[in-house]
């Protein structure tokens, strides 16, 4: 079944006429993703790689009522409006690629979407891929392969790194979700653990964390609290990051004495989650957990 996106995912691309939007529309189509429509205000009537462009998500949904997923490439100043537009138009999963969104804006739309029952993936994320079914994101599709490992990650390329290793090992992924590198994201690790728990295809979960915040600690606490049934392997980036400095991601900062890698690793280990010391080690631990090899 996979989670968040699958064969029944019908995608509208918000910001389709931009450089990024257009490039990744092509890449998603090539992957086999059902991209039915694009939106750029004022550019309705055009088409991008054969995908019709509309002035609003409302128009797109009127023409393509099967649309259930949106991917947003619009610049940060307009991203928040794009989210509300998608949610109000009835979209169920919104993948927000855009980075540099002010946190006061994202607090609001994330709260709104959650209350409305809409899943927001991101902001500042590479998107979601359920290999062989649908890719709604900017990740290189070829490093992923259909399989049994669910991945939830705060980082993009690090996900590809780990996914590639998992693919090479023949395990494959059920779904890989880049939840985003911002301090506050729509889907968090607990949300993903819950979804993977219900997903029959997923036999093990990989969590890729990094410094900043306490999402990993809360995930660990959740795993313990609910006696999570599936094996979980983690990797945490930023063991060598100095406090008080943002490491690329808006969310990757050790601040006010909290959010360092050691605390996260300790939390994971305390609840039985194996923590890899290098990305390559993730596969070794996964195999152990799944009693393979």
């Amino acid at each position: 079944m996979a989670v968040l996106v699958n064969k029944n995912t019908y995608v509208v691309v918000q910001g389709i006429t931009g450089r990024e939007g257009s490039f990744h529309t092509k890449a998603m189509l090539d992957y086999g993703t059902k991209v039915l429509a694009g939106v750029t205000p004022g550019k309705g009537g055009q088409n991008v790689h054969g995908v019709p462009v509309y002035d609003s998500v409302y128009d797109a949904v009127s023409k393509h009522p099967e649309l259930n997923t949106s991917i947003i490439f619009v610049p940060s100043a307009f991203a928040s409006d794009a989210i509300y537009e998608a949610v109000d138009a009835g979209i169920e999963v919104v993948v927000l690629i855009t980075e540099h969104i002010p946190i006061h804006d994202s607090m609001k739309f994330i709260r709104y979407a959650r209350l409305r029952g809409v899943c927001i993936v991101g902001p500042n994320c590479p998107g979601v891929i359920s290999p062989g079914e649908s890719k709604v994101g900017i990740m290189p599709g070829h490093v992923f392969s259909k399989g049994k490992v669910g991945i939830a990650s705060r980082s993009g390329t690090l996900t590809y790194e780990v996914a590639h290793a998992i693919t090479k090992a023949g395990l494959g992924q059920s779904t890989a979700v880049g939840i985003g590198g911002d301090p506050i994201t729509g889907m968090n690790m607990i949300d993903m653990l819950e979804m993977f728990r219900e997903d029959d295809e997923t036999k093990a979960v990989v969590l890729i964390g990094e410094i900043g915040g306490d999402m990993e600690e809360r995930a660990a606490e959740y795993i313990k609290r609910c006696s999570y049934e599936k094996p979980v392997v983690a990797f945490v980036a930023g063991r060598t990051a100095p406090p008080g400095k943002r490491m690329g991601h808006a969310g990757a900062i050790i601040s006010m004495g909290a959010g360092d890698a050691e605390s996260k690793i300790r939390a994971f280990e305390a609840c039985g989650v194996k923590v890899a010391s290098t990305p390559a080690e993730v596969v070794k631990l996964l195999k152990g957990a799944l009693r393979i090899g």
Partner: protein
Amino acid sequence: MKLYEYEAKQLFSLYNIPVPEFGLARTPEDAKNIAQKLGGKAVLKAQVLVAGRGKAGGIKFAESPQEAYELAKKLLGMEIKGEKVNSLLVSRAVDIERELYLSIVVDRSVGAASILSSSEGGIDIEELAAKSPEKIVKVYVDPLVGLKAHHVRRIVESMGLFDEQKKVLQDITLNLYKLFVELDCELAEINPLAVDKEGKLVPVDAKVIIDDNALFRRKEFAERASAELSEFEAEAKKHGFSYVELDGDIGIIGNGAGLTMATMDVVKLYGGRPANFLDIGGGARADIVEKAASLLLKHPNVKVLFVNVLGGITRCDEVAKGLVNALATYGKGKRLVVRLMGTNEEEGKRILSSAGISAFDSMEDAAKKAVELAKVM
């Protein structure tokens, strides 16, 4: 972006949170004049962004304008945890009876602003939270609804104040929240919020951190932020790189923040010391890669440059071209270790090998090599 205390206090005044009268001194004469205006006695506070300036001797009390002059002379130019003191906040000293705590922070766990208050201020709030969490009142504010009267009541009622003081604290809380939201703050803190001998509430210290992503809405701060960068930081910023300076000798370039951090971590795991963190982001072309590599190759501390790229949108051939060019210009006396994988990997490796550089497939192997090279140089 962290603001200086004096900037935070200026914002407080703007939002009708009354702070003790103060002036900013950039010279001992300034300090003397301000102390004079304040009636002679004054407190001098080093304006630095690092925490813990009190213990580091960055706060002094002057009994006279002359003493203010003498103290300012000592304070200005001193270094506190590596940060040079360029200015002093010279302020009316407050006769403190009690110290309270009040702050508003973006709470990542709940995705909302949370207001923290305590009737025991003045100390480190994290310490208090760890030691006596029951002494902290924490109120979450729904971002869609905003601050309501019942939130404010819970804070105000927990402080052990008289009715008149409660009214003042209520206004301070409302105004601080307004500031917090309107200026896109990550943190707005008053610690201590003093009760003076006359029973007045006085914000003695002020701390404000503004969301970097919102600086486009606050141009004045954006400019100041740029002005303070080091030469290397400024150049990295110009090209849109995420760049953090560290104290080792292995320069690190990666694409993607997580991968770059992991690269640093692996280098450290194998006994090396990263000189920096540089993330070129996604889809960098040859010229951008060249600029990134040149920047690090020029850095005096960097002996070995370790480039770790997993090509997705980023194409390995573009990376290779950029590296070869940078090395040709700035590579003298430096070593390059490259790990390339992904889009156009073959072509990238071909370009590198024609320039005599071999590329690794595994980041672990590459890291080991980089550490080894750095040790023998």
